[in-house]
């Protein structure tokens, strides 16, 4: 990890007005929705949205603009650079998550009086790990594409998986050989469901170490794979 790169990445996020506008929105929503029964009503998905927005900028745009060339002539190992970028981006997202979390706590103290720290705390930790996976996947997709194609791949994959799962259950309910085959072989469903829960998981409502470990290791695998691809990758001038 390169401290200079991490610090610069965080600095670039937290010096942007858009970032603070988003964080302010998060804070207001967390505070407001703390009146309701269900903890963590909206902010975890908004933090995921922030993870899409910031996470997709980690490598792709630098690759396209030629910024990467300036950096790669400096004595920084490419893998170290990539991991440091992820760390910086994830830190900026986690700061936002922490702020949202704090405002929900504040709201609960103000409006409700009782705080279920265990539940809200679990939501925070799940959000941490979930956003780490989002960034890891975005960086993985960026390691072999340019510009913002990583987020395009991510969305297409996520939506495509949902559509595929829907189509499989639709075909199964139909008569005919395909329907019959699918009815007796649930392997297709299981594969799709497994990919979905590994790449685009729904966080459990409480702390589940098994789930946390699975998501964290998926993120680690994505980052390691990204490093491997990125290390050998050509960085042509003005790729766009």
């Amino acid at each position, binding site marked *: 990890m*390169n401290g*200079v*790169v991490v610090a*610069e990445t965080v*600095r*670039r996020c937290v*010096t*942007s007005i858009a970032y603070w506008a988003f964080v302010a929105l998060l804070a207001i929503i967390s505070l407001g929705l703390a009146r309701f029964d269900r903890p963590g009503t909206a902010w975890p998905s908004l933090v995921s949205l922030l993870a899409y927005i910031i996470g997709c900028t980690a490598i792709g745009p630098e690759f396209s*603009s*030629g*910024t990467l*060339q*300036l*950096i*790669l*002539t*400096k*004595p*920084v*190992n490419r893998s170290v650079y990539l991991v440091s970028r992820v760390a910086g981006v994830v830190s900026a997202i986690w700061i936002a998550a922490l702020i949202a979390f704090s405002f929900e706590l504040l709201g609960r103290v103000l409006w409700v009086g009782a705080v279920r720290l265990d539940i809200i705390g679990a939501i925070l930790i799940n959000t941490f790990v979930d956003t780490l996976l989002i960034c890891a996947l975005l960086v993985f997709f960026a390691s072999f594409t340019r510009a913002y194609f990583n987020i395009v791949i991510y969305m297409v994959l996520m939506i495509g998986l949902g559509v595929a799962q829907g189509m499989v259950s639709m075909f199964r309910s139909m008569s005919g050989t395909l329907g019959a085959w699918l009815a007796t072989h649930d392997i297709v469903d299981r594969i799709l469901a497994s990919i979905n829960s590994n790449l685009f998981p729904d966080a459990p409502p409480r702390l589940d170490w098994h789930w946390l470990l699975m998501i964290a290791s998926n993120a680690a695998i994505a980052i390691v794979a990204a490093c491997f691809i990125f290390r*050998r990758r*050509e*960085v*042509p*001038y*003005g790729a766009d």
Partner: protein
Amino acid sequence: MSRSLPRAERGVQVRALKKSFGSHAVLQGIDLDVAPGEVVGLIGPNGAGKTTLMSCLLAFLHPNAGEITIDGLPNDDLRVRRRTGFVPERMNFDRRATGYSFLRYMAGLARVGNRETKVRAMLERLGIAGAADRRLSQYSRGMLQRIGMCQALIHDPDFLFLDEPTSGLDPNGVLLVRDLIAEQKQRGAAVLLNSHQLAEVGKVCDRVFFLNRGVIGREETLRHADRIVIAITMLPGFDANAIARIAGNAPKENVVIATVETEADIAQMVREVIATGAGVIDVRKHTADLEGIFRGVA
């Protein structure tokens, strides 16, 4: 600090370098050396492959064949990186960053000690200290070029790669860049300079290579750039062998080209040619400036 690092001993070596994009063979066997304390210019028309060659040297691109070593090390070695400076053809960075914060980041990546002082000094030296706290989005092309020089020089590199360093610069900027290159040379850095502008290159380079159609067309040692080339035109019926012996070149059609050092040499050569019985009808001379050499190649 970079100052305590050993200076370049062997410089940049390129052997039989080939690079293609798909079926488009851009570099077709390049041999090139840049010694420490030497400024080598690479000129050629747009699309000749100058940037591609530089990108291979900096390990942005993987060559299809050939070898690149820098001080005997592979060019992607981090020890080489630490002593490398690069000015890209066009500077690109987060446009919201100020000149100062950009340079600070670059200095941090290059592990420069005493960063603030160094950064301020570089900005001062390149004449953009006044714009230090402005955003890069407000910089002109020339100012970006200047800050590009700053980030390349801030760690006193031993290997300096400049891709069209004076494009977009005003005349003062061009002079400044020339001075800076001369300084780097004095320090013992090996400098490789890309350009399609001939006038700028000739003044600072020890040697110039002409890159054209994927090969290095000709190397000229500029120390001899002020020698004189003469073209002697003769009536038909001259003794071609005797003329070739005198001029060092075989005549083509009825013209022989020769290179001499002084004007006295011209007179001497013309006398010798006449002595063979040739009917000299015209003698033209011109200095072998880069422009002329380049036109002969391109």
